[in-house]
């Protein structure tokens, strides 16, 4: 009995096995964290892509470029109506003239809802 115990203690192979299994466990754990993060990143980016109100912004820009120069006297009235219509959907949109020269307007388009806030300023010929 005594000699057997002595032999087991002297055998150091088990310690190496434990060390390696710890190493592999750490690797698996860190890989699983990476995997979870990849999953989250995928979900978030596809959601952000889907939710972005690109059509509303395009619509506002088109109004700013094609319609606003024709109704510049009633700029505030145009904006008031846009605001009221967007307010029904919990969003805000406006197309405002921020600067004017003899041959162009500088127009700022603003759109915001609970997800996105978008501001763009550009020049429109008179």
């Amino acid at each position: 009995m005594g000699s057997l115990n002595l032999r087991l203690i002297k055998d150091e192979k088990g310690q190496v096995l434990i060390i390696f299994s710890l190493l592999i466990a750490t690797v698996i754990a860190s890989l699983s964290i990476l995997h979870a993060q990849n999953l989250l990143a995928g979900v978030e980016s596809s959601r952000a892509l889907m939710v972005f109100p690109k059509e509303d912004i395009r619509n506002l820009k088109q109004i700013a470029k094609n319609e606003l120069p024709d109704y510049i006297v009633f700029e505030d009235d145009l904006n008031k109506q846009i605001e009221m219509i967007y307010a029904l959907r919990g969003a805000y949109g406006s197309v405002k003239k921020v600067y004017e020269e003899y041959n162009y307007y500088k127009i700022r388009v603003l759109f915001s809802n609970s997800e996105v806030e978008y501001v763009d300023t550009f020049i429109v010929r008179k």
Partner: protein
Amino acid sequence: MNNKAQALTLEGVTAALLLLLVLYTLFQSSLVISPVWSELGDAQLKQIGYDTLRVLDRDESYNDSLKYMLYHLNKTDPEYPKPNEEFINSLETLLTSSIRYRLEVSWTNITGNSTLRNFNFIENLVLINNTPTPDAVMVSRLVVLDNRSLTPSSPFMPNLDNVTSSYPIVVEVRLILWAV
């Protein structure tokens, strides 16, 4: 001859390849999950709707344009508020026969005169009244109309005194779509 070292090298190479393969799979596995949130609904259907409205929103000289349709809505018309035939034909061609739709418009009720205007409330009108299913999606587009091109019996005509120049009327066209 001792072949042990060669076997070890092969094992090392295999282990390295295995690790690389696992890492590559992990980095490539970013899932692009199609939306399941109710607000997003059927993303493809929404895109078709937006494209349809964008195609139809063209110069009013075309009889099937949004503007022509809105300018020609007339309260005295016996078929009011049904849009003109050309518009409906183009709309149904663009949407294809597998998509059903409902069409609504909203605009601001405006009263006042040349110095002061009151924006009272939003008016709604259902142009094509079909009942949507629960999985329907909504798309919309803002169209700016000119009050001088409106007929007195147009539903969009604002009640304004002494406004002689072009006055903008913003109309929201809402298209509710669902697949059958």
